[in-house]
């Protein structure tokens, strides 16, 4: 029962946050100089198109009415039309969103695989090689410019060693698998399309690795910090004083206590990643939301940009909500 109340409470907060996001986005579009109509149909549109838009969006009406119309559109799922592609934005996003989701998810998995074990080990073995390695990598990964790292990886693995495919999109030398989730790797696995599978994996490795490095670095740092904190706590000292062997202390006592804060961090980073793949998508021509946003920005096509912004922000909030719920379920202290 308490869980239901908590979920309900958090959902309300989520709705309020999304509401806030929509308000801010709306304000931004109306605050920018220039007639918003042009933002929507483009500067080359003729007067009648512009008038039609003004009429449809009620841009000559008072601001609150404008907001109401905007919200109504949004809630009906109408994210506007991209005059650059000629498609409704929601259609464009239906293929681009899974591309970003796939990239972000693979990147997150890779990041977890390298940073968490290293973080834990470097914390347990203080002043060892792994300790210095961890400090070095986390500092480097946080400071390195993402777009430069991406460029560097292309230089080394494509131009240099020539083992990576050209950085052009999601799949080459094979056709995309049948679309079920929109994520090539999963779809090709489901349909047992091995040609597609390997081609997709080859294309995703470099961009995902770039992100895995830049996201893994803060995760590494945070894992180390949390583990250090736990290992210094009195209950760990107490367990050791009771004669409990070191391996039990690490796996049964320390690790579970670190899991909670680390998983929160993973969620925050993942939420950030869903809106933060822009630079990598740009460098690798990855047809996701980020590239879509940049292409639209460069063509002064703003409806897609706003849609991407709202979608990213909402995804972040959703991920955050899910983590909160997970926390509530798993942590005995909240029951």
């Amino acid at each position: 029962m308490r869980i239901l109340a908590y979920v309900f409470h958090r959902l309300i907060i989520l709705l309020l946050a999304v509401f806030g996001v929509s308000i801010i986005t709306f304000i931004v579009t109306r605050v920018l100089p220039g007639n918003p109509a042009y933002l929507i149909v483009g500067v080359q549109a003729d007067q009648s198109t512009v008038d039609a838009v003004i009429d449809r969006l009620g841009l000559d009406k008072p601001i609150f009415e404008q907001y109401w119309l905007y919200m109504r559109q949004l809630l009906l799922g109408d994210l506007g039309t991209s005059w650059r592609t000629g498609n409704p934005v929601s259609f464009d996003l239906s293929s681009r969103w899974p591309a970003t989701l796939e990239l972000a998810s693979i990147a997150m998995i890779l990041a977890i695989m390298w940073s968490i074990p290293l973080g834990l080990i470097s914390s347990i073995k203080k002043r060892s090689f792994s300790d210095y390695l961890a400090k070095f990598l986390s500092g480097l990964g946080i400071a390195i410019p993402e777009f430069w790292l991406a460029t560097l990886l292309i230089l080394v693995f494509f131009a240099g060693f020539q083992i990576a495919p050209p950085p052009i999109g999601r799949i080459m030398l094979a056709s995309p698998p049948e679309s079920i989730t929109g994520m090539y790797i999963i779809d090709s696995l489901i349909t047992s399309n091995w040609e597609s599978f390997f081609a997709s994996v080859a294309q995703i490795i470099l961009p995902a690795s770039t992100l895995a490095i830049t996201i893994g670095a803060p995760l590494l740092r945070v894992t180390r910090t949390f583990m250090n904190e736990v290992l210094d706590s009195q209950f760990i000292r107490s367990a050791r004083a009771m004669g409990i062997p070191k391996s039990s202390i690490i796996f049964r006592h320390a690790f579970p206590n670190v899991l909670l804060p680390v998983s929160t961090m993973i969620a925050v980073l993942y939420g950030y990643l869903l809106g933060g793949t822009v630079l990598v998508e740009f460098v690798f021509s990855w047809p996701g939301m980020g590239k879509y946003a940049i292409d639209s920005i460069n063509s002064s096509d703003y409806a897609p940009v706003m849609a991407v912004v709202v979608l990213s922000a909402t995804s972040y909030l959703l991920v955050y909500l899910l983590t909160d719920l997970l926390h509530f379920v798993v942590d005995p202290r909240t029951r």
Partner: protein
Amino acid sequence: MVDKKKEFIELNKLTLVISSKNKKLFPLQGVNFSIPHNTKVALVGESGSGKSLTAASIIGMLPSNAEIIEGNILMNGSNIVNLSEKDFQQIRGKEISIIFQNPKESLNPIISVGKQIAEVIRVHEKLSRRESINKAIKSLELLGIPSPSKRFEDFPHQYSGGMAQRAALAMAMACRPALLIADEPTSGLDATLQQQVLELLSNQVQDQKSSLLLITHDISVVGATCDQVAVMYGGRIMEFGDTKTILNNPINPYTIKLIESFRRSKNRSMTSIPGSVKPLVDKLKCCPFAPRCYKAEKDCNNQLPSLSFVKKRYVACSNL
């Protein structure tokens, strides 16, 4: 001297060095004292006197930058100073247990209290899972925790402070150790609670015929509880022996001043010992208390007094 066979723990000339970056500290310098079987001993000293480090040495849990460079610790006659971590794991929780201040903090917040006690039991005794659970419930019961089988499942945050104290003690005593070390169990508690905790410790230890090493900075709590008391200052034992003897007739000036300041503070007038505790960056060449001692004489600054048996207790003072 003391009959060696009767002592459970014996510390002989124990000297410790702590090395950091470019500094060296000597927090323990030639510590000599002992803990007999089935006896309650108090180790009293201000912060910085080295009492917690003494306890840490006994169970082999010194910080990584600390090293014992002289002396030994005998447990039933055998030296335990150079034992490996694995060997110490056999001793900790089984022969010697320690409980810390803030009992709630000594418990893992995400594991049920009972499971933690059962784990300690299983580590030291070859019992099945079921058996160790039963024994854990039994130990909770022995410490006066109501509905022990239900309390077994509860988490530390569901325990009150007093119950957490009992649970922590249950965990420490579950395998019937020969010595229980209590590191500042009464600090931060008001008078009534202090009384309760001391009684609890006393009873538990007596029931199981174990010894107690009570570490505290408050000499006024030892009178009712402990059979013997050791007063520590500057990494050395100043006075050591039967509690009544020492409290009624203290010889070492530090002990005298310590008793005075606690007696006075109970009566609400402020007394303190002038001066402050200095960190021990060198090996001592004279009595550590000499700079602050009201009875200091020329000899006190020239020689390091060792413990001698005077008036039925051990005392270290150049000016007897």
